[in-house]
């Protein structure tokens, strides 16, 4: 029953194990004078709902312990990033863990944990060697996201998630999955399935792709790095061999996809940090002048920036990075209550499209 067996894995533990709950080992835990500024992106979710719930900490530590066991000597900074918390919060969590023991609180039952330099060591702990099962909301959120992307493995993945929820909570999982709808898959399941396999196996793909700029189908050989979502569309991000650079391909424009035998080395994390789905918005953003009805509707949509209000509740808005074609489509979709006004090339495209389309109704 003792945890002694687990202690062997402890790397040179200086742990002074005391039976008293407060005197747990805290040996080499240097604390930074101040927590570093949290990363904006990682903090967003937490900042949105700053509700201190004791269960939040528990969820974090139930992941933190097995993760640190599996990665001995992981830097505090990296562990904090994995846990989506600040280093200060992480150190507070570690302090909290030092006081945890299982009754009857014999010395051997305490978690053996220490921070040395800026690295965390947790000796193999019997009880918390793996995280607990998915909660129904964890599994349901992941399942809903997977269903919105799609792919041949969608059903399998959702079933596996369901079975990873405690038995008593599976009915709640079923119900919750039906309460989130993240969108329809952007391409056929077979196309998505092959892309996902190619990403997992790092193999190049051959695509039949509809190029919007040329309005024609093209064949592309692409090293698929990842899939990502922006402004309601899914994109494949990968290296186009012919063009010699990384580009974004809209998934709903991929008609066919074949996995080739060509293997590739992934880009480094540093390269990916610099990656953008779209090349820096070229030139000026498109400006659209909206009537009052269109303005209310458009301003509630993502990707639209208000430039100024005009009389009677109208507005001028900007679409960053929009092609001339996109700006035209956007304005026309507002049913006559909007026009593209800038830049000049987008304006010409709009004028041309209105005249040509009107000619069809002549």
């Amino acid at each position, binding site marked *: 029953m003792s945890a002694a067996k687990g202690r062997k894995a402890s790397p040179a533990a200086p742990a002074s194990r005391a039976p008293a709950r407060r005197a747990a080992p805290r040996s080499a835990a240097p604390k930074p004078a101040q927590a570093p500024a949290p990363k904006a992106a990682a903090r967003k979710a937490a900042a949105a709902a700053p509700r201190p719930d004791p269960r939040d900490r528990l969820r974090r530590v139930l992941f933190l312990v097995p993760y640190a066991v599996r990665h001995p000597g992981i830097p505090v900074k990296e562990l904090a990033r994995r846990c989506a918390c600040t280093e200060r919060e992480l150190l507070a969590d570690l302090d909290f863990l030092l006081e945890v023991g299982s009754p009857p609180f014999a010395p051997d039952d305490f978690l053996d944990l220490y921070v040395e330099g800026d690295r965390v060591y947790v000796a193999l702990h019997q009880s918390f060697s793996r995280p607990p099962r998915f909660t129904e909301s964890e599994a349901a959120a*992941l399942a809903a996201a*997977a269903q919105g992307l799609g792919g041949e493995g969608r059903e399998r993945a959702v079933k596996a998630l369901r079975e990873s929820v405690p038995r008593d909570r599976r009915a709640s999982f079923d119900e919750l999955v039906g309460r989130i709808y993240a969108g329809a898959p952007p391409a056929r399941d077979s196309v998505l399935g092959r892309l996902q396999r190619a990403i997992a196996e790092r193999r190049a793909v051959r695509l039949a792709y509809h190029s919007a700029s040329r309005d024609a189908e093209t064949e592309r050989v692409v090293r698929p790095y990842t899939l990502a979502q922006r402004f309601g569309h899914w994109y494949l991000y990968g290296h186009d061999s012919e063009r010699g650079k990384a580009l974004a391909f809209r998934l709903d424009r991929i008609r066919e996809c074949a996995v080739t035998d060509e293997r590739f080395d992934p880009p480094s994390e540093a390269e990916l940090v610099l990656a953008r789905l779209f090349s820096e918005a070229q030139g000026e953003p498109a400006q659209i002048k909206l009537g009052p009805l269109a303005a209310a509707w458009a301003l509630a949509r993502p990707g639209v920036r208000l430039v100024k209000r005009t009389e009677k509740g109208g507005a001028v808005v900007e679409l960053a990075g929009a092609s001339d074609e996109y700006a035209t489509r956007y304005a026309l979709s507002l049913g006559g209550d909007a026009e593209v006004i800038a830049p000049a090339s987008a304006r010409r495209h709009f004028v041309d499209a209105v005249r040509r389309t009107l000619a069809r109704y002549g």
Partner: protein
Amino acid sequence: MQKDQRLLDLAALLLKAAEPVSWREIQEQFPEDYGGKGEAAIRKFERDKADLLELGIPVRYAAGDEDLPAGYLIERDEFYLPDLRLPPEDLALLYLAGSAALASGTFPYSRDLAHALNKLSFAARAPGASEAAALATRQLSAPEEGDGVDVGARVEELSRAVAHKKRVHVVYLGAERRQTTERDVDPYGLFQRGGAWFLAGFCHLRQAIRTFHLKRIVSLAMNPSAPRTPDFATRKDFSLADFATREIWEYDVHGAVRCRIRLEPPVPAEVIASFGPRARLAEDGGATLVEVDATNEEGLLRHVLALGDRAELLQPKALREKARTVLAGLERGLA
């Protein structure tokens, strides 16, 4: 003892125990917490059990038999996250979809999603390439600064209300009226469309199921009383997917009208797909004829206009005429 500490200690005790732990023994181990006599201590323990289950930790009561005493236990098989046993492409699906959703900052249950993604590395033998790709996804899918933050909070709040079936009081800005209305809504579900999130639910003001654009919800308050008791039951005939996949021209505005559209070649797959799964398609000398039943002609008109000169409304005549009028009006303004 602090609640978080008590819960973790309790879990550790029950996980480590070789046989079920009796209530008396639990009381002895946690004298300050469950030591009292009678109902109050048991109720506190039951609440803790429910909290543990919400964390994914099922505590069972085992009725004793000849070999085992009666008591509480956590079965290891039921506690530890199992290996999902999925092929690499399915793991890639989970990682990429989950990461994109999380990065958008506006996905329901986003905190749960973050935990789920973390746990995923334990639930698969070799996540390798997929996990690395997920990092890139997160990077690429992150919204611009200042984009969608407030919607993120709304989504999170409504996620809770949907999960616990709690009524919400909503101050809502109408799309075209530009004035606010207040109403109670039974939140049935959340759906995403064109990159924006919507709430679907029973609206007590209109006495019907309605959808609400989250960006136009000015303020939101969840019924604070009895947080674990549902306020409503979802209507049996309600399907969120049906609601969410309605095309704009299928909104319930008037009786159904059969409409025909002609698409000139080359017709990209996305354009055909934009008419939805219920559109009827026919070939006509390289062109594609699309037929849909519209209950909101105005919506169809806008959709077809956005396709530019590759699309032409053929029927009904009145709608075709309206398209011409809109385009002629725009053209006059261009001069």
